[in-house]
């Protein structure tokens, strides 16, 4: 046995949720028993969540993996000297098909280094983008972001460069950069994984945004349901400040940018950008009427950039390697990579970063291995609770903004939730209305009242009451919601509801329960 040993084990909340800490404890114990000095590096996650807790050891510069580990597996790992023929050995991690098939730009450090190791961050390319931003003019930075074709990753897909240019050109004594880390969509965890695994990338992107538009203060609005991400981000901000990478003299450039973390408080609608700004001002999370847009008048009425975590995190690479390299990835008007999140009833769930354009089928069947239960896939919801339900027959749809829009669906934040054939789609439609009723900010009547009516009406449909008439009423309510809502909460709730009705009509009983006369006699 070697005298000193370096092992890598994820500290990501998902890994901890299935026992990574117990594995860590057992590793320490066994190392002590074997008289080995253990350097246990707690990294972010590789995103192969079905293999968590995943532990790695480096041999000849190559990381070899083992997982999913339980505390009871640790003893045999030591006995077999972490050899590749251990029953839980995965071989070289980066050679695994799940890793090979990806283009890891955003997540290249995730799962590799300790998220708070600033030297490791810099060694692996960190700060390169920020240094370019410091050296060049703000106009050049905005020009690069525009030329890259980067679109917002929060859901709406708005071109980032245009937003930045607007805020940069708005005259004001103070401007703000607000990072939307509210990640409320079911089936999404890409923001969380990035913040827990490589918080420096987001900070770097925010500083660049600040320099580009002339903002000296940034806020990260991070959902309270992510306690681990909050702790990691707080520690990362402190570490950056201590190094002089954040603050009054960034990297000795004389330029200024300060960053403050603010927690959400359990409201889905606060992910909507103007509600988020209200919340950041200490108010109820009510959606604001637009115009004015935040880039002109946002936080405290000042020009404000609101961008998703992944949008901001995409910027450092665009500056470091050039807009053209980024633009070369992807399809049509969907450029760069997207962090797809495979979730729900799927055998191999996790985060998969790839250029736009691969099909749902490839992702779910080839990489995801089909359903966890082994039953047939029946429905897939893409893009969070406001996204459409698609039937198994539509799995060949390419994952890109325009193709999804054409199919009456949306990519949103890239969450993909798989359901097997036991799902009751009428119940899912009812839930979508219930969720809207629960989370509505209350500002407009169609959303506030219509969602409650919608849920009640779908409950009647499920009971088989006056199905045709009630479904017609649901459809009418959906039209009112679509046309009369101020924001996408009410405006898009019809998407899951109507797609469920359209594609899975058989689940919405067409007449009162059939009585089998031969049995009743």
């Amino acid at each position, binding site marked *: 046995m070697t005298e000193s040993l370096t092992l890598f084990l994820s500290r990501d909340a998902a890994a901890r949720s299935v026992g990574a800490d117990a594995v860590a404890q057992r590793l320490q114990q066994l190392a002590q028993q074997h008289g080995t000095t253990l350097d246990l590096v707690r990294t972010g996650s590789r995103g192969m*969540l079905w293999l968590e807790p995943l532990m790695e050891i480096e041999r000849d510069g190559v990381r070899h993996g083992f997982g999913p580990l339980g505390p009871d597996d640790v003893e045999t790992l030591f006995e077999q000297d972490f050899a590749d023929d251990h029953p839980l050995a995965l071989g070289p991690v980066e050679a695994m098909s799940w890793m090979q098939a990806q283009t890891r730009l955003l997540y290249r450090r995730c799962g590799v280094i300790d998220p708070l190791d600033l030297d490791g961050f810099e060694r692996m390319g960190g700060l390169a983008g920020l240094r370019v931003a410091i050296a060049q003019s703000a106009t050049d930075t905005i020009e690069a972001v525009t030329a890259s074709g980067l679109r917002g990753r929060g859901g709406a897909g708005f071109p980032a460069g245009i937003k930045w240019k607007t805020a940069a050109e708005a005259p004001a004594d103070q401007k703000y950069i607000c990072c939307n880390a509210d990640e409320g969509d079911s089936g*999404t965890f890409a923001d969380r994984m990035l913040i827990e695994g490589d918080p420096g990338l987001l900070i770097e992107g925010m500083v660049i945004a600040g320099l580009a538009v002339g903002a000296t203060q940034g806020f990260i609005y991070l959902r309270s349901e992510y*306690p681990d991400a909050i702790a990691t981000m707080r520690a990362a901000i402190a570490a950056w400040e201590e190094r002089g990478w954040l603050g009054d003299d960034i990297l000795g450039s004389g330029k200024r940018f300060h960053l403050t973390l603010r927690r959400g408080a359990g409201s889905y609608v606060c992910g909507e950008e103007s509600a988020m700004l209200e919340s950041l001002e*200490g108010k109820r999370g009510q959606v604001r009427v637009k115009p004015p847009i935040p880039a002109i008048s946002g936080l405290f009425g000042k020009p404000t950039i609101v961008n998703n975590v992944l949008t901001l995190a995409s910027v450092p690479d665009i500056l470091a390697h050039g807009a053209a390299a980024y633009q070369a990835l992807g399809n049509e008007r969907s450029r760069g990579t997207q962090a797809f999140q495979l979730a729900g009833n799927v055998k191999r769930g*996790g985060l998969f970063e790839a250029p736009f354009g691969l099909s749902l089928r490839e992702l779910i069947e080839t990489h995801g291995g089909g359903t966890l239960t082994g039953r047939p896939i029946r429905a897939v919801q893409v893009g969070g609770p406001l996204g459409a339900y698609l039937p198994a027959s539509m799995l060949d749809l390419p994952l890109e903004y325009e193709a999804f829009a054409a199919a009456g669906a949306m990519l949103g934040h890239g969450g993909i*939730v798989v359901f097997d054939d036991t799902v009751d789609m009428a119940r899912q439609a009812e839930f979508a209305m219930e969720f809207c009723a629960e989370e509505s900010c209350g500002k407009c009547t169609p959303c506030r009242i219509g969602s409650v009516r919608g849920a009640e009406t779908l409950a009647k449909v499920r009971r088989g009451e006056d199905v045709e008439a009630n479904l017609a009423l649901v459809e009418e309510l959906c039209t009112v919601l679509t046309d009369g809502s101020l924001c996408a909460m009410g405006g898009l709730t019809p998407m899951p509801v109507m797609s469920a009705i359209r594609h899975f009509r058989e689940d919405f009983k067409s007449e009162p329960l059939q009585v089998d006369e031969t049995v009743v006699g």
Partner: protein
Amino acid sequence: MGLSKTNRETIEQVCARYGHRADALIEILHDVQRAHACVSDEAARIIAGSLNISRAEIQGVRSFYADFSTTPRAPQRIRLCRAEACQAVGADQLAAELDRAGTPHEAVYCLGNCALGPAALIGERLVGRATPDRLAAASAGSGQDD
């Protein structure tokens, strides 16, 4: 329910820590909720005085956000994810099982553990692939931590 002098002082300290800034109200409410398991009317009154905003405003904010309560909540309570990805792997059935066993739980919508559902938070501890047994074990473990 009147707050003791020390409680009043801790609330004022929380407000001071955020520079008595009204825009930090949500942060302040989080800290008070954590320290006192709720934001009572009395606490709201102290915060209002300290930040120089109206009590009605604080009550409005408190009632808007699911994280804040007027009456005490157990810090180690089970918060079960009831959102779609967890529904797809039996979150509703798990909730029903907990109900039958008389285990109290609350609903939350997505904990970012959607590939390892059903997911739950016990205090600040995330549990994946939750079952009644795993939740009971995690609850017992959380108790020891504090």
